[in-house]
């Protein structure tokens, strides 16, 4: 992976070093999985669930996203999803939905960076 790609990802909130450790130094696999993340349906499903105020579906999607972002070392985004899952589990869906603008900002920055390195 070229240095500029790593810089882009780091700037967008990906702990590239930590992620590569988890991927045993397999950069190609990391890139493939980052691309898979941008194409994953769970984020759209989370937004739709919040729209319909379907807390159960929102929890499922947020939990999955928490796992993915954790695995890909998207540190800041992962802690946002972690807090959202906690709020949903604690029976505070409104608090969880209120986090969405902040989550969207972080999510789109990362997706943008992944798009840029994939071109």
């Amino acid at each position, binding site marked *: 992976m070229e240095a500029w790609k790593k810089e882009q990802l780091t700037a967008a909130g990906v702990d590239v070093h930590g992620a590569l*450790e988890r*991927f*045993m130094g397999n950069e190609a696999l990391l890139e493939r*999985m980052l691309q898979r993340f941008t194409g994953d349906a769970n984020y759209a499903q989370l937004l739709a669930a919040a729209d319909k105020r379907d807390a159960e579906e929102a929890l499922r999607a947020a939990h*999955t996203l928490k*796992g993915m972002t*954790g695995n890909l070392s998207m540190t800041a985004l992962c802690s946002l999803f972690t807090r959202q899952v906690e709020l949903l589990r604690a029976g505070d869906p409104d608090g969880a939905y209120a986090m969405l603008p902040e989550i969207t900002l972080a999510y789109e920055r990362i997706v943008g960076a992944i798009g840029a390195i994939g071109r």
Partner: protein
Amino acid sequence: MEQTIGNVPYVAPQTLLIVDDDAINRGILDNIFSAYYKVEEAEDGRVGLEKITAAPENYCAVLLDVMMPEMDGLETLQHLKGLGLVDEVPVFLITAESRDALMREAYNLGVMDVISKPVVPYIVTRRVNSVVELFRARKSLSSQVMKQQAELLRQAERIILLNQGMIEALSTAIEFRSEESGDHVRRIHDITQYMLEHTVWGEGLTRESTEQIALASIMHDVGKIAIPDAILNKPGRLTPKEFEIMKTHTTEGARLLGRIPQLRENGAYYYACDIARHHHERWDGGGYPDGLKGDEISPWAQIVSLADVYDALSCKRVYKDAFPRAQVLEMIRGGACGVFNPKLLDAFFSVEESLAGLYQSE
């Protein structure tokens, strides 16, 4: 000596199964473990369960996610436990949750370890690999123990057969000395066994006892080894003094058997001594050496004494020719060779037709 006869050698399972709905997570674990194992993936609990139940012996470990569609990790674990498979294949729960209740339930269901997500490669490999090694070592050890047990059993069987062979060889050698055919002991064995298996005289005896009595019957004349050739092989009638010596083959036989310590531990020993000493006793007390009467004579000694007379009359001996069958039966019925238990005679005549078959092939 052969090492693997009749035993399939243990083959260690090589496949690690990853059950997770998240493709990224599967990719990470696959990347970590493909260096050690053949890796298979399942995208939910149901698919994973189907793979494991189809061939549990193929899997060395299962890495199981908790939150999955279709069938989640705990439900999958419940099924595996119900099938007794958690003891066969180590299951690791890979989860982003560290809730106490979840961990407790997972361990109650027999999970081997709970590993938190996101995984740290060196930790997850260390924990999984050591358990896999442990399971392999344990199974290979128990397969070795089973192999050794089977080998010991085979050796025990060989020793029993050898014992039997030695007893037959000894008895046959003694029969040969008195210039009789070695078939005599074989027929006494067969007649005794047939009477025990096909008449009321075998009632209440276990299969093992029946076999022990039949084996013991082979040794009925071992005492003849103590009788001088001149008497044993004398063609004519014995003088009263010679007959007294001849009679001692019963007491000498029992004494000889009592001197073989290894035989004393054999189940046949008790029968063998009794038969050797008492196979010339007669129902009316007219036999020897103890002059026992009626039921004082054990059933097996009675059977062997009748078998002995029947065989002696039916065959040529150094002191006589073979008698025709009808005459043999008449002599036995008429008490020409001593008086037998009427109930024993009833049983004997009921199967004599079959016993006669033992002589026709010769």
